[in-house]
């Protein structure tokens, strides 16, 4: 039954998408780079978008429009080197279906496939597709272990890891000297991973966790110690509250309800993100406007940025090597020669040990980008971007 649905969705996936080909002026493109895009049908991560009573808690949205903007840009660049870029999209509701969809995309010529998948689904897919001549770009799974114990040679990550984001927050708190942190944690596995990642970052940058407390989403008076923010945040002395709540349905009520007047970071208040639509430097406004044209009324978020960055990385590889050959492009992407313009300042490249894209992280509220990490106070022996996330000596991944 599930298989049948997968097949139906694959048929719907349709033809390769290449918006800018018709605009080609200076001679016909001689070579093509074919990209694939794979997502999980009914991905639970997007189920909360519409949330309760139609009130949108967080407009995550699927990142596909970011990839589309990337392909359009890639084609305007490709004109000058006579290489065109095309992208085909597919989705499936299960692990088996995803592997089948990846094989199908590859059969139609796609060798670089963007994946918008939860961490477990991506890990399964990369194992099932290990023998295929395919490289995946993870655009939305932040799981640290996908860059650590579960890393795979066929997966590049343009989405930042939990560790990169929590390191960015920890650097910020350390520079503000808000060193004592109260950690609030929700019930989901993702909440646990985020809290764990933050605790490691706290240790790395010299913060102190004064306590870690679990909250629950209820109004049950018998559980008020867990569901009432004031009660949950009393009886401790802290400079700042870190809240790990992937659902965001608790976190959004934490600012202003803490018993002490303290700032909130994590999944509410100041948040560490790959992208914020409020970022206005480094060419960001032009990217925002291209995205808004393609995806109105949505604004670009972290995963959409990561999808854009993945296409851009492939296009850069083609531009710099003047080639559409898979092995040539993959070898360039794996090298440290890539100077990817992330529209966030310092140039990005993929870490040789775990294939994670080095990138600045934006620390933003709902109304402004407050800081970008790495903060200038943190230095590194080779590249300051490696102060964010697992650096080579401590990485559990050895792909180099």
């Amino acid at each position: 039954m599930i298989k049948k649905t997968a097949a139906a969705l694959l048929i719907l996936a349709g033809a390769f998408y290449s918006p800018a080909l018709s605009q080609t002026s200076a001679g016909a493109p001689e070579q093509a780079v074919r990209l694939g895009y794979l997502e999980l049908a009914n991905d639970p991560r997007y189920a909360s978008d519409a949330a309760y009573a139609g009130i949108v808690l967080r407009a995550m949205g699927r990142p596909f429009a970011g990839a589309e903007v990337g392909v359009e840009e890639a084609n305007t660049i490709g004109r000058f080197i006579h290489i065109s870029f095309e992208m085909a999209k597919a989705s499936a509701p299960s692990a088996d279906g995803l592997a089948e969809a990846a094989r199908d995309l590859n059969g139609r010529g796609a060798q670089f496939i963007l994946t918008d998948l939860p961490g477990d689904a991506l890990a399964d897919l990369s194992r099932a597709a290990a023998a295929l001549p395919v490289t995946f770009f993870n655009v939305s799974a932040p799981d640290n272990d996908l860059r650590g114990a579960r890393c795979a040679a066929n997966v590049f990550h343009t989405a930042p890891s939990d560790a990169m984001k929590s390191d960015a927050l920890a650097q910020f708190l350390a520079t503000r000297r808000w060193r004592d942190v109260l950690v609030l944690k929700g019930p989901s596995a993702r909440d646990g991973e985020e809290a764990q990642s933050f605790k490691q970052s706290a240790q790395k940058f010299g913060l102190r966790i004064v306590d870690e407390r679990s909250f629950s989403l209820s109004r049950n008076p018998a559980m008020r110690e867990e569901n009432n923010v004031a009660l949950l945040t009393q009886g401790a002395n802290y400079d700042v509250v870190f809240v790990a709540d992937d659902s965001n349905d608790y976190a959004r009520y934490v600012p202003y309800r803490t018993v002490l007047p303290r700032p909130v970071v994590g999944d509410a208040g100041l948040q560490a993100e790959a992208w914020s639509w409020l970022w206005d430097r480094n060419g960001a406004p032009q990217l925002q406007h291209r995205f808004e044209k393609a995806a109105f009324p949505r604004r670009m978020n972290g995963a959409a940025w990561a999808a854009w960055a993945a296409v851009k990385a492939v296009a850069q590889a083609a531009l710099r090597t003047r080639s559409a050959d898979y092995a040539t492009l993959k070898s360039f992407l794996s090298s440290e020669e890539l100077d990817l313009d992330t529209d966030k300042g310092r140039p990005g490249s993929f870490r040789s040990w775990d294939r994670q894209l080095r990138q600045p992280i934006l620390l933003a509220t709902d109304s402004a980008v407050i800081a970008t990490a790495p903060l200038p106070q943190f230095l590194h022996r080779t590249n300051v971007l490696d102060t964010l996330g697992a650096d080579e000596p401590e990485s559990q991944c050895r792909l180099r």
Partner: protein
Amino acid sequence: MHRLGLSCALALLLLAPASAFASGTGYVFVSNEQSNDIAVLDPKSDYAVVARIATGRRPRDMHFTKDRQRLLVACGDDDEIDVIDVAALKVIDRIKTGSSPEIFLLSPDERTLFVSDEEDSSVEAIDVEDKKIEREIQTGPEPEGLALGGGILYATSEMADVVHVIDPAAGRVTTSIVVGSRPRRLLLRPEAHELWVSDEMSGDIALIDTKADRLLRMVTFDPPGFRRIDVTPVGLALSHDRKLAFITLGRANHVAFVDPETKAVLAYVLVGSRAWGVAVSHDDKTLFVTNGLSDDLTIIDIASRKAIKSVAVGRTPHSVVVDD
């Protein structure tokens, strides 16, 4: 006949009658992207800001007409180029452009404006007389730097990492040269058949042979206390005797003094935060650098290679020009 009539209109617009107060005021003009004005500094009063010219929103690149009676400024958020009467220090006219003009050039005969519209992926040619967009030349995304020499127009595309070689009469790109990443500004050295390109993201200057339209090599920078990754070159200027080049290094907070012949870096002078705009006084004695993230202008004595003063000018200073 019709043509003559329009020329008279042009005369009114750009070529105002000579005024005792206009050219050679010695004033330094700095466009402030976020204050929507141009700060006017007087070197005779120790570079005090003596006036502020209110402009359209987000003023950026600026150029004088040859007679120095008019100053033109591209206003990115109002899609226009404002025309300023230098004697009156006032905007007296506006020329509509495409979306988000950043850098522009005035043709040698002052009949045509070439404008890069960073949101439109095009460079447009605007007839100054009738203010009409005559031609739109398709470029890569986010076109920026422009240079005009020997009847050829050059334009960078920040996103496509190329310099376009453009036939301005035909209105089309004849060839595109791949350079470093995020190419920003251009500087022509016709005496050496060279085009210099500042690559902000790869942190170098690409040297192009304009006879062969070919990339020659890259010039790199190592300012004290900064790594290559911090070096984000943008602004380029030559001394009027063409014997010294100045390159602002963006986030590396320095300006490099470079020998244009050998390309050797002679000095790095520390300036403010995110140095972009650069201009040289007519006597080649003083250098001006705008610092976008410290909202000030650094004034440098070229002979001693020392910063002598910093002046607060406004929010996010972009470009600087000198009327001397």
